[in-house]
């Protein structure tokens, strides 16, 4: 129990500190680093209470997709503090490296705790407050209720995603004039006599094109 609460407080502390760092650090790239750290710490917390499905989804969706996307956006928009330096060929003295190293070190440390505990002492990290049956996996138990008891919520989330998609298209799609597009139908249905013109070339006279 003591080990459990010690780990809980470690993870929570890291999560809270990195959440604060996301908002206070002036360098946007550092903010994203701390955001990733925050996500990973929270997914460790999920794994600790036995919700491994949520923890893994958190890792895949938030760290794997959202945070990396953030990182891309931050770099592409060049909103980092050192304006104009991110893509410049000049070596910037490696200001990101210490922070990046620190964040990845903490992540490494967290992973050792979680995976090590999971591997060698399975009862170490199990929470006593929530009853999760060990026979049924998380994924299965979520699937059991998602399409039955919570069907309304499932459907509403579908509508929300639809609206989000419509909104993104409305606000960003612009019809551009003069864009050349490939038309397969036009290409395939082209006949020989449309494209090739057979001309009887006379000696020493050549052929006049576009006559």
């Amino acid at each position: 129990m003591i080990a459990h609460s010690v780990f809980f407080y470690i993870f929570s502390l890291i999560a809270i500190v990195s959440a604060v760092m996301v908002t206070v650090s002036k360098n946007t790239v550092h903010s994203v680093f701390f955001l990733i750290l925050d996500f990973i710490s929270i997914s460790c917390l999920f794994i600790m209470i036995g919700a491994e499905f949520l923890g893994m989804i958190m890792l895949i969706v938030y760290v794997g997709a959202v945070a990396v996307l953030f990182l891309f956006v931050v770099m592409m928009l060049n909103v980092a503090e050192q304006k104009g330096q991110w893509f410049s060929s000049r070596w910037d003295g490696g200001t990101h490296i210490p922070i990046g190293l620190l964040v990845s070190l903490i992540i490494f440390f967290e992973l050792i705790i979680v995976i090590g505990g999971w591997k060698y002492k399975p009862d170490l990290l199990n929470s006593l407050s929530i009853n999760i049956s060990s026979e049924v996996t998380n994924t299965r138990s979520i699937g059991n209720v998602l399409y039955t008891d919570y069907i309304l919520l499932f459907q509403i989330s579908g509508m929300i995603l639809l609206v989000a998609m419509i909104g993104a298209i409305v606000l960003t799609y612009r019809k551009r004039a003069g864009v050349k597009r490939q038309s397969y139908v036009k290409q395939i249905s082209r006949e020989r006599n449309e494209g090739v013109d057979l001309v009887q070339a006379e000696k020493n006279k050549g052929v006049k094109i576009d006559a």
Partner: protein
Amino acid sequence: MENFQYILPEIFISIAIMLFLLVGVFKKNSSNLIYSLSTISLVILLALIINLSSLDKIYLFNSSYKIDNLSNYMKIILVGSGVFVMLTGSKYIQVINLNKIEYPILILSSILGMMIMISSNDLIVFYMGLELQSLALYVLASFNRDNLLSTESGLKYFVLSALSSGLLLYGCSLIYGFSESTNFDQILINSTEFNYGTTFGIVFILVGLAFKISAVPFHMWAPDVYQGSPTSVTLFFAILPKIAALSVFIKFLYTPFANMNDQWQTIIVFISIASMIFGAVAAIGQKNLKRLIAYSSISHMGYALAGLSTVSNQGIQSSITYISIYLVMNLAFFSCLFMLKRNDKYYENIEDLSGLSKKHPILSLSLLIVLFSLAGIPPLAGFFAKFYVFLAVIEQSMYFLAIVGLLATVVAAFYYLRIIKIIYFDPEKEEYETSHNLGLKITLAISTIFILAYFIYPSSITEIVSKITMI
């Protein structure tokens, strides 16, 4: 399946949204068609809801969805005003070149979200409905994306609304943590004894809801968003989200938190007083009519909340009556605003109204009636709305609230009357176009006649509303 018919309105509108989207994708230049189809589908939706309104109380989806008198009445006025919003705005969005297929579809999906909010009996269902409606509203606010003000208003609304959603969710998680349930009825059963966690949860949820209803001190987004959005969207903003948020307010205060009224009553009284005073005072210096109506709506929300703070059925009913009359007055006011058009340009400043009475006597007369009603001058409908609220407040001997409310009415009357003075006594300006589409004329006629004739038959609303009891 035996309960299928009760959820039919929601299913109908969802299918309509997807169908219209498909029509819009595969049929070229179908924006006008989809606009009219959406208006018709709203009318059908209204009929479906009215068809269900004889039911007393139905629980669906593991009692996370509740259909009762409150939700039925609120949905009827919601969809009814949705129809009128579509009718009045049809010409406007064509003129300012916003006639895209997505516009009516976003309005429909926002209405769907509001219907879910109104019927929700569960924290998660409520939050999903709220997100569905606000997501559509963010896009609608910045729909005129080439206009700087519109984009700004959309972004502002998005950022502030996301913040308030965060606070609301935090409140929900606290409530869930301390009462061990997300179901409203179950929360009521489980939270019999006082604890700080629940109180904090209530405060956070009330903050989030007060933001959605634009009550002081969470009102700062309203004037900019109202001014920046296209006018047809402003009309939508001024009416429909308020109906949904007010019914959620009633639901929260009188279902899960009914035992804790000593905790929330002071909060509601404070928000109500602050909104009434601020809305009245801040509107005085405004030059833009849309901004003015934003401040006016803030103070009107204050009156509606005053009714809620009384912890009595009479108070709830007075609030519901208030919002019903408020939406009619807003419809009438915005119909007048849509008529201020000259050479494909819409005018929305107070000075544009100068001397309107000389060349447009009927329009000026309707504006006069609407503004008198907004100011609460008898015997117009706006007076009765305030009258019921103050009656309920005084019945519970909350004299301070009543006195402040009355004083705020007097202050607010100043800026409404100033507009009337400008219309009737200032030098006249160029003539506006007089040919308007039928929907606009019908809306203005119906709403003005309602405001004028309400005193003849005041039980028309109060009788229906008196069926809604929460305590």
